[in-house]
């Protein structure tokens, strides 16, 4: 399904449409159900997802069974008639609980056990338009024409889907060909066969059905669109921001960023290397953070990328960086926890952990991105903060953002600066007071700069030598913590929290990928007569206490709703800790699937109009 999504996205972007697509998959390599959930807009870059869908294309029986209730009345369904007689009870990859639940829903809706039962239910009861295609027959034609084996032909199953969809959406064949060329660049034969097959399908579909889902003319103002996942976009930000060392240990959903960087290790422009990034696969996450800190001490901008289990192992070294005022960035992709949890599903359940991870007290910056644009700039800012304030920076993302594919306009270079603070690549020869107490932020000669410096995880003096003297202890402790106050005074509040909308009927408080759904929900609710606002939190330490406190003052407690992908309403707890404001209304989701606009809208109404205190969202398989 990924291939279909990619080709459609390219084709749509080529014509100026905005696209977002979420990828949902099991922690498994082959054989479990996975799907792509897309949203297309002619007016703007979409950043959220919703149900029901208007158009569904299924490659196999399991998909039909699983998503029967996700298709809107009067929508369109494309499927393989070859699986019509398959029974839901005969899908070994379907989890027993899912099967049981679906079966009972089927019973209630009066649906039988086969794919054709499902299809006819959709057609009759839900007026869905059905496009049944005999995949085998189509592929047999292809096999004959190109002399393919059965296995080779099977790879073109997804072509049938995206072509049929393109037909229904009224996409021109050129744009689809463009998508195919992009996807299979350099593989001429595959491109040719795909083009052949897709143009045939597009024509067939168009002949028979017209273009019932024809998109309106796009009005998005962009001459170029980047098509990339959140992982890629963070990688791009790191490249622009001057990353020179990235360590990692493979983990979902973070590893894709490092693979992306590995593919761009030598920053080649017109055949010449501008620089190079060392991407280093370590033996574990402890080595990943330790080597990244080491590289930073030597003067390389350095980072590591990981997810929950990996970060849990990095906690000790995080404190070393804090104690030694060593810059390091940890790009942290949240997935479903606790423990191994739901490795390929999303969550926002690691915020409080990152704020207090590691024993003892030291300054750190924790920031979280809500959309690809924020992710790009945050990736750069994170490295700037790390070097300017000489501390570890944790850049939080969630799997929703990381593994979704977006169409993103080119960033604006005006806003981008590299700030290395008091880093000294060259320093006077000889012993140097690395931890000079005269200012909270001391000049930082790197190893090899000419200076001789010491570092120690023990409490140390200005030279980095161990001392247990209580007076030095107080001074050094306060020196380090003071940097957080400086960061608080220097980093603009607008980059740390933002209020969208000004309606007083309700205030949503959220962070990360919640942003997209929240902003769209504001609009939908406004149309329904509820004027609200969304407070988007981006930096959790130093926390923009005053600004947030001011915003909250404008609302009754009963109208302030935390919207988060966790059970504890973690960001709301951070708000309480800093402002004393106790949030008492919650919309929470922790199934690992993203918050969809329609369920958010509905939940807000239930709280504001229905007097409910907490809504736990559950849409999505």
């Amino acid at each position, binding site marked *: 399904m990924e291939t279909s999504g990619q080709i459609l996205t390219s084709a749509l972007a080529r014509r100026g449409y905005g696209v977002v697509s979420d990828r949902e998959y099991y922690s498994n390599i082959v054989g479990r159900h996975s799907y792509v959930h897309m949203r297309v807009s002619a007016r703007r870059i979409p950043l959220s997802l919703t149900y029901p869908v208007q158009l569904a294309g299924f490659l196999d029986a399991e998909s039909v069974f699983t998503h029967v209730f996700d298709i809107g009345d009067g929508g369109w369904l494309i499927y393989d008639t070859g699986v019509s007689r398959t029974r839901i009870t005969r899908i070994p990859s379907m989890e027993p609980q899912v099967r049981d639940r679906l079966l009972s829903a089927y019973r209630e809706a009066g649906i039988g056990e086969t794919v054709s039962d499902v299809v006819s239910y959709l057609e009759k009861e839900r007026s869905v338009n059905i496009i049944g295609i005999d995949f085998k027959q189509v592929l047999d034609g292809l096999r004959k024409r190109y002399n393919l084996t059965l296995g080779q032909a099977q790879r073109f199953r997804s072509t049938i889907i995206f072509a049929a969809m393109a037909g229904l959406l009224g996409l021109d064949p050129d744009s689809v060909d463009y998508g195919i060329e992009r996807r299979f660049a350099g593989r001429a034969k595959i491109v040719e066969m795909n083009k052949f097959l897709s143009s045939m399908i597009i024509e067939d579909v168009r002949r028979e059905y017209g273009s019932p889902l024809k998109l309106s003319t796009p009005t998005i103002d962009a001459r170029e669109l980047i098509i990339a996942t959140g992982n890629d976009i963070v990688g791009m930000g790191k490249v622009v921001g001057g990353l020179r060392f990235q360590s990692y240990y493979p983990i979902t959903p973070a590893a894709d960023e490092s693979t992306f960087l590995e593919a761009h290790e030598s920053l080649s422009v017109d055949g010449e290397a501008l*620089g190079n990034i060392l991407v280093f696969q370590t033996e574990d996450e402890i080595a990943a953070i330790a080597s990244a800190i080491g590289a930073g001490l030597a003067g390389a901008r350095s980072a590591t990328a990981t997810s929950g289990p990996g970060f849990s192992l990095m906690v000790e070294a995080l404190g070393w960086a804090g104690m030694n005022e060593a810059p390091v960035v940890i790009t942290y992709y949240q997935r479903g926890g606790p423990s191994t949890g739901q490795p390929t599903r999303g969550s926002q359940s690691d915020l409080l952990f990152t704020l207090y991870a590691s024993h003892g007290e030291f300054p750190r910056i924790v920031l979280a991105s809500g959309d690809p644009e924020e992710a790009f700039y945050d990736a750069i800012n994170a490295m700037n903060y790390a070097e300017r304030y000489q501390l570890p920076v944790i850049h939080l993302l969630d799997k929703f953002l990381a593994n979704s594919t977006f169409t993103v306009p*080119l960033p604006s270079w005006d806003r981008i600066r590299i700030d290395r603070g008091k880093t000294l690549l060259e320093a006077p020869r000889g012993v140097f007071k690395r931890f000079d107490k005269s200012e909270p932020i001391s000049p930082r000669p790197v190893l090899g700069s000419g200076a001789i410096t010491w570092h120690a995880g023990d409490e140390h003096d200005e030279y980095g030598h161990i001392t247990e003297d209580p007076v030095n202890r107080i001074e050094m402790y306060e020196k380090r913590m003071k940097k957080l106050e400086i960061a608080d005074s220097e980093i603009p509040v607008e980059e740390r929290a933002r209020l969208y909308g000004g309606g007083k009927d309700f205030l949503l408080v959220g962070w990360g990928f919640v942003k997209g759904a929240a902003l769209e929900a504001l609009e939908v609710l406004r149309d329904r007569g509820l004027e609200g606002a969304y407070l988007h939190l981006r930096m959790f330490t130093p926390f923009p206490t005053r600004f947030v406190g001011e915003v909250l003052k404008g609302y009754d407690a009963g109208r302030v709703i935390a919207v988060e992908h966790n059970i504890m309403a973690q960001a709301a707890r951070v708000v309480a800790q800093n402002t004393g404001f106790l949030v008492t209304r919650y919309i929470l989701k922790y199934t690992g699937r993203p918050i969809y606009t329609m369920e958010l809208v509905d939940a807000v109404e239930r709280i504001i109009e229905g007097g409910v205190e907490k809504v736990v969202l559950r849409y999505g398989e």
Partner: protein
Amino acid sequence: MASSLARYKTDVWSDWCPGCGDFGIVAAMQKAFAELDLDPAQTVIVSGIGCSSKTPHFINANGVHTLHGRAIPFATGIKLANPSLTVIVNGGDGDLLGIGAGHFVAVGRRNIDITVILHNNQVYGLTKGQASPTLRRWEQVKSLPRPNIQDAVNPIALAIASGFTFVARGYALWVDHLKEIIKAAIKHRGTALVDVLQPCVTYNNLYTADFYKGRLYKLEEEPGWDPVVHENSIEEVEEKIARAWDKALEWGNRIPVGVFYVNPHVETFEDRIAKLNPLYSESPVARQPIAGEDGRPLVGVEEFKKIFGKYIVEVERK
């Protein structure tokens, strides 16, 4: 071109117990540095946590005193970011072979050009004398409430099994002999282990200077001893390893010190990286420019479009 010993001393008081073998190791390091004329500013001593890991504070060179067991990965990051630095790791047996054993194995797989000096005192000194991974089964040093029930790990054998390309053993109280080994280890291109037998006068009442006296002998004085792989044939490697391994198992009345195994033919990790990325050998990543004078990134919009061309779609309205 030796330089003066004083160049490598700091004025930090060594708070080791009087008589501790660690003093000998520091002295040997300082002498080795002087004879190699190492630039203190281009030398980095990375240590873990333990008595032994206080070493960097007593030597005038960059010192990075890290976390228990993690000196090797810190050192790895430093060396890979700037391969022109001379990087040395000092750690205890608990540090490098207990909590840090995973990194010990991993660095062998890379053959990074660093030298690992193992302070092997058979105890956890700084936490008051518990059994370390080099104490043998049923031995009971004085702080133990009961005899040790774990087997000892053999640092020489483990290093060879892990891929270290220079493996030697010295004795903390034979400062000049140790100095020579350290010099050879530093000069060797690749990961080097110097296992140093180091009496802990406070907690180790078994492996004392007295114990070692008369038992130690020098490998280089054995007739025909040649630990170096010369031709790099599989057979020669196997043979040298087998001989080193045999010597590694010797303990008791005769205990060998000296160089056990050297294979200079294995590419270093740095060379491997440079093979894939030629710029790496010219310009360490730690020293490359990343921005212009004005703070603008080196990768501007035009460079961005070229580097990430395949992610960019030019919109063509129809």
